[in-house]
Structures are given as C-alpha cells and as structure tokens.
C-alpha cells in the first residue's frame, strides 16, 4: 500500500533531481509541441509526469464515472484504435471495478483497450473521468508495456494519486518486477474517436514504439522536421517513440496530418 509520507521522503538533492527531470521533460514536450502538439501527452504514460503539476481534477471521481456502462461500446471503441483487419482478431479488454478484464479472446496477438486518464492523459487530467483513449498493442507490447498500463490502472482504481503511482511504479521497475520492453513492442493509436482530456482532447492518428533505456536522439526524435517524437523516462527505463500516420483506422484522412493530395 502506498504511504503518503513516502512522497515527502528523499534528500534535497533527490528532490532537486526530480525537479530537473521534470524540467527536462518539459523541454522535450516544448520541442514536441512544435512538431506534433497533441502528442505531448504521450510522455505522461507510465509516470512521466511532473510532480508539481497543477490539476483541474484534484481528486478521484467515483469509480463508476471511469467505467463505460455499455460493454459493447467499450469493445468497439477499443477496436477503433487499429484498422479493422487487425482489431477484429485482437483480444479486447474492458475496464471493470478491479481493473481490466478480458471481454473478447483474440487470436492475432494484438490486445486492444481503452486507456483512462491515469495512463493516457496529462498530469492535469490525471483524474479526469471523461478520458477514453483507445490503443491496440502488439504481442510484444502486451507482454511488456501493457503490464505497466494494467498495473497503473489497478493502482489508480484503488485511489492511488499521481505521485503515489509514480513512486510505486518506479520502485517496482527498479526491483525488476516488470520486464523490460520486449523487442518489437509497438501499438496502434489510430482511432478518430475517444477523448484525451482537456489538455489534448483529440490526438492525431499515430503509431507508438516502446524501448527500454533508449536515447531519443538515436532516432533523431524531437528535432525540427523530424516525424518522430521521442520521450524517455529514466526512472521508468522507458522510451516511447511516436510517428504520426496519414489516416485514421477507418481509412479516412486525418485532417491533423499534412494534406496528402496527389498532383
């Protein structure tokens, strides 16, 4: 169980280190904003969050507000993260009171879920009950990245605050209670539906790639003109790369992508 007092522990140098990390992340986000503004929130997954962020949602809403009453609607929303050719054979998880549970068995290794605020929105929106972010992870990510998502979800449903969840995850990862990112881990986030929170309501269609302890510079990420946004979180030993795609999962053009008109 997370002890609130733990948040106050740590030396001054450790606290400074946290502030420096937060500042560094903010610089990355600023760079990312110039390239791919809405994707700035992606770095917030798995605790890549500044500790002192102001929040519009200061406390947890009732659990019911995070759930989707219509199970079939949640399944459809989860599947909308990837083209139907992938999603129709994917496993689908839906959120229950105690965490994600299997709603549909899959057969192609992909797993589709609707992420909630604690894994899929900015710090400010950590408790926003309206957040619904569909994603379909491939098998490699299901074996590694998704484990973190489901764990964070469990912690949040139990009332874990942003700081508490961050600390718990950092400690667990340091103890190697979670595997490193499996090579080839990636996911589809191509849904035109969903809601990313007040800070980034509608994300562009994109793919994500997950690595352990990889310098974003190695992919040329976050540089002017680069199609790659990269966010590294050393405490989580996680690097996420984002590449925007031209179309939504239903095949229509994403208007946030540059015009794609043949001469």
């Amino acid at each position, binding site marked *: 169980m997370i002890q609130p007092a733990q948040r106050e522990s740590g030396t001054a140098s450790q606290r400074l280190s946290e502030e420096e990390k937060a500042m560094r992340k903010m610089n990355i986000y600023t760079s990312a904003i110039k390239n791919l503004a809405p994707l700035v929130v992606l770095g917030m997954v798995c605790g890549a969050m500044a500790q002192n962020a102001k929040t519009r949602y200061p406390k947890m809403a009732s659990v019911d507000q995070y759930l989707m009453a219509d199970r079939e609607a949640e399944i459809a929303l989860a599947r909308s993260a*990837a*083209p*139907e*050719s*992938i999603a129709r054979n994917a496993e689908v998880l839906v959120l229950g009171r105690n965490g994600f549970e299997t709603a549909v068995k899959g057969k*192609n*290794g*992909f797993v589709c879920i609707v992420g909630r605020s604690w894994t899929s929105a900015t710090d400010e929106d950590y408790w926003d009950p309206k957040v619904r972010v569909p994603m379909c992870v*491939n*098998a*490699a990510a299901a074996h590694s990245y998704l484990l973190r998502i489901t764990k964070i979800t469990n912690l949040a449903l139990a009332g874990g605050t942003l700081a508490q969840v961050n600390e718990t995850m950092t400690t667990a990862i340091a103890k190697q209670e979670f595997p490193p990112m499996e*090579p*080839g881990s*990636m996911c*589809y986030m*191509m849904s035109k539906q969903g809601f990313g929170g007040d800070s980034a309501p509608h994300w562009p269609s994109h*793919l994500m790639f997950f*690595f352990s302890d*990889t310098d974003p*510079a*190695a*992919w*040329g990420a976050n*540089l*002017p*003109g*680069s*199609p*790659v946004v990269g966010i590294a979180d050393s405490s989580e030993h996680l690097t996420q790369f984002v*590449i*925007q*795609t*031209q*179309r939504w*999962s*239903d*095949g229509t*053009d994403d208007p946030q*992508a*540059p*015009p*794609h*008109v*043949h*001469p």
Partner: protein
Amino acid sequence: MRQDKVGTIVINSFALLVVFGMTYQARSQDATTPYPKMAPVEQYLMERNAEIQLARSAAPDSISRNATILILGPQGYETAVQGTNDFVCMVGRAWGAAFDWDEFWNPKVKAADCLNPQAARSVLPIFYLRARMVMAGRSKAEILSAVKAAFEKKQLPDLETGAMDYMMSKSAYLTDQGGHNLPHLMFYTRVKDGKDWGSGAAGAPVMSSPYWFFSPNQQPQMKGLPPILVFLVAVTNWSDGTPAGEHNE
C-alpha cells in the same frame, strides 16, 4: 474528386511498396527482368557534390547537417564528410536491396538514406561490403557468398536493437514503379513475422519485407544469413517539410 486523388496516391504508394517487396506477392522467379546484368560502373556513380546533397536530403536538415556523409567511389563507399551525431547518410543503389529484386542492377535507383547510429554500426557494414564487391565487378552470386562468409567469420556485426533509417528525400529515385518515391522510415528488426506489427493488414500504415530476399521461394539461399525483417512506415512529409502529396513527379 478528393477521393480520386487519395486513391491515386494510395495506388502509387502501394505499387512502390510492392516493388520493395513489402508484400510477399513477389514476381515469379522466371519473369523477364528489365535489368539482367550490371550496368557500366560509371552509371552508378554521381557527381560528388550532388551525391552529398542527395544523401543529406534523406533526413531533415536538423539530423543530416551533422551526419557523416558517404559517397560511392570506384572502390565502394567512402567518407566525404565526417559527422558528429553518429548518423550516416548515403545514397543507396539498387544492388543494396534484396538479391531477388528485378531492379537489382537498375542504375537509375538513387535511394537517399540516413541511418541512425544503431543501423550505422550494424547494417552499414553490409552496405560497405556489397558496394566493394559490386564496384569490383563481382556477380550477384559472388556478393551473396561473400556476405555469408563474412557473417560466418563474424566480420559482420549482429543487428542492433533500434536500428532504423530515414528515407524522406523528395529527390530520391527508389524504383521504376509507381511514383518512384515515397517518404518513409525503415526499421530493421529480428521480428519473425510482419504480422506482429500488423504489416500488410488492410488499412495499416506498416509494410514489411525480408531484407535479403523478397520471395519466400528463396529461403534456401538464406542459409548463413541472419534473418532481418524490415518494416516501412510511410510519413506525412518530405525531409524539407513539405507534405508528401506536393511532390511533382
């Protein structure tokens, strides 16, 4: 009208991807190839400054201006500009692609390519060896044999995780097919099945191809070669920042 235009680019892009072997619907082995043998060496060479400029155009300036630049000389690739960011930019030729590509000897192919540090360390040595062999007039079979021997003797490195490259040049010529070009990123992996990334699924922006041979019929020739599966993700802009659809062909 807009749908028609989008359809055109999709078709052109798809044709291009097919040519890259991004589907397994490769042409039959006995199909007549338009390039049955190596062209004269000089047809593969470029004017030095033009080659440097084309190589750099593979990636946004923010990456390529600090990259090492290679150019193709009579003995193979050589360093023209020493970089500082561990990226390496070059102009790939057709004979750097899959051995069973029917444009393998196409001298028109000028594929601007900026490899990231992992690819520069683990994929580029293969390019170096192949280029040396080609410029020495070696046959495809001899090149393949040399590559296998080099792997067997550990003279070529294992593929590094995270190896990828930028191919976003508006000025590249990638194939005789379709629109000849497409801005994209490539990822070199040990993933065994392209379906693990959703490659080839209808509507997916990801395609894949084995690195050495497009056709599954060529698998016997794979003996001695490390499996490498290359994924391609199309991107929305050329390296100069203009949208992909604005390229005049």
